[in-house]
């Protein structure tokens, strides 16, 4: 891995080069509500710098909340079908946290390993992830419990760690290299050093090894009911989660002209598993929440070898009932 250095004061200049490259640049922006969201920006002045975590993850860059799978048009001699993959722009995500970067690893594995998803593949191929290490954290952060750190490089193309007046730049992939090559003069060569003291301190909430083992028998835990009783069954956790990938496929338009869309869906919604006959295999919120949590900590491990929770803490911050995923997991694996 190549290590570079850039002066903190030069970051805006680097950023402007990214904008000038003509690619779509997505970066955290502070909204009036005080929450920070990824948005397309045009200059560094729009970019939020003082935040712990964005409200939503950057997954929408590769897995949009609504994605047109294809459009169709009835003609006299049949139906024209046109997919939208060619319209996908080159995109740079700036300022995602290391945990989010690692979430892309999971998503890539999930979408591309088996039955590869061409939409995801096209978007991912055109996306560069520039992550920034966490100097701050809050009580909801628990990346250190799922095998990550506030300075993890997994999944990102570039990781920036501010060290005083300097920014320590880890060039992780070719895409990352290409990004700094846009303004090569701003970067100097640097040597590898420890980021430790510049990173936020995050206590581990549990031992992942133990949890992975214990969750195998957690399905029947009586605690699921207690832990899920407070769950309202909204989709806030799933939609803000960087690794939740459930979706719905819906047609819009008329039978003559319209689009087939895939839209985010959430396994916590009451009707998510409901059959057309009215039969619902997952009748209550306990079953639905259990599915979500077991998926993160057991099923994705069994299917793909990856714990699909990155400890970003969004679901905890966003939950209307303030349910806490790591407390829930601890409780059902006791």
């Amino acid at each position, binding site marked *: 891995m190549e290590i570079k250095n850039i002066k903190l004061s030069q970051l805006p200049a680097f950023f402007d080069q990214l904008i000038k490259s003509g690619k779509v640049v997505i970066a955290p922006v502070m909204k009036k509500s005080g929450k920070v969201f990824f948005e397309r920006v045009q200059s560094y002045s729009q970019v939020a710098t003082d935040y712990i975590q964005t409200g939503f993850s950057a997954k929408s860059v590769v897995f949009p909340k609504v994605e047109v799978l*294809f459009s169709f048009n009835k003609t006299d001699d049949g139906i024209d079908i046109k997919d939208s993959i060619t319209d996908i722009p080159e995109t740079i995500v700036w300022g995602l946290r290391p945990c989010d970067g690692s979430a892309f690893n999971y998503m890539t594995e999930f979408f591309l390993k088996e039955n590869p998803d061409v939409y995801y593949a096209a978007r991912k191929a055109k996306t560069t992830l520039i992550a920034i290490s966490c100097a701050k954290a809050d009580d909801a952060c628990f990346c250190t419990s799922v095998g990550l750190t506030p300075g993890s490089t997994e999944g990102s193309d570039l990781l920036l760690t501010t060290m005083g007046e300097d920014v320590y730049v880890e060039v992780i992939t070719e895409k990352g290299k290409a990004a700094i090559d846009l303004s090569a003069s701003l970067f100097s060569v640097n040597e590898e050093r420890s980021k430790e003291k510049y990173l936020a301190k995050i206590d581990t909430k549990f031992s992942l090894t133990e949890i992975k083992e214990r969750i195998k028998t957690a399905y029947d835990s009586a605690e699921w009911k207690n832990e899920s009783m407070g769950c309202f069954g909204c989709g806030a956790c799933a939609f803000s989660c960087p690794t939740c990938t459930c979706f719905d496929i819906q047609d819009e338009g008329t039978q003559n002209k319209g689009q087939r869309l895939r839209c985010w869906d959430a396994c916590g919604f009451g009707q998510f598993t409901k059959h057309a006959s009215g039969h619902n295999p997952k009748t209550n919120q306990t079953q639905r929440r259990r599915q979500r949590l077991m998926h993160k900590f057991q099923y994705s491990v069994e299917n793909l070898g990856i714990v699909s929770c990155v400890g970003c803490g969004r679901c905890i911050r966003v939950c209307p009932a303030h349910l806490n995923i790591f407390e829930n997991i601890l409780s059902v694996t006791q």
Partner: protein
Amino acid sequence: MEPKNQYIPYKMRIASITEEAPLVQTYRLEFVDEKDAEQFTFRAGQFAEYGVFGEGESTFCIASSPTREGYLECTFRSTGRVTKALANCELNDIIGLRGPFGNTFPIEEWYGKNIVFVTGGIALPPLRCVIWNLLDQREKFGDITIYYGARSVNDLVYKEELEEWSSRSDVKLYVTVDPGGETPEWKGLVGFVPTVLEQNPPKSDNAVAIVAGPPILIKMGMPILSKNGFDNANIYTTLENRMKCGVGKCGHCTVGKTYVCKDGPVFTYEEVLKMPAEY
């Protein structure tokens, strides 16, 4: 080769329409594009996503046998938005089809064995695919026994084929209707499928059984067979959870870690017992 975009449907023309029962129809579908027809292969047990453009997609098994080439058949009941729109289609209309998806019945493993089918209502179509597949190579199998039931005489599907099977000497067919669903002319059995199965138990030696139906029939039928000496690994079922993508991504069909769409829909009782009962 570029991976195929699994969300773009084949265009299918509705080649014939058969009314099976109230609200239940069978469509015979032919590929609009001959190249698609050449490429497309499937095996018994697989399903597809049938789509009406502008309305959405609906999941059902392919009801015709892979041994009958050149077309596909599906049988569906109109209940939801998509199936109602599908039912409103006309001859020669073009609909979308994605698939085939999912695993298959291991028909080759069954050579030389006695086969028992247990099914009800609108769950006969997925097994009809298997039944014809077997009947088209009848010599390779032992006894074939079919238990089929519906709510009423009118609700029985494939009435002509039922006639045909019942008249064949190499098929043992039990057709039953739920109590109260019989007509004065009805000469068949009256009773729920599990009851009929218990009263006329099939022999389990050298036999495999396939159970398909509403969840309640699967949940009741498989233990009956198991009790009758069938090995749990020799009892098959096909699950029909809600599905959207068909390729193990959208998450709707999950039962525990299992994606019914790609890991199933065919499961043995042995496998089903290891899953949570969320189907």
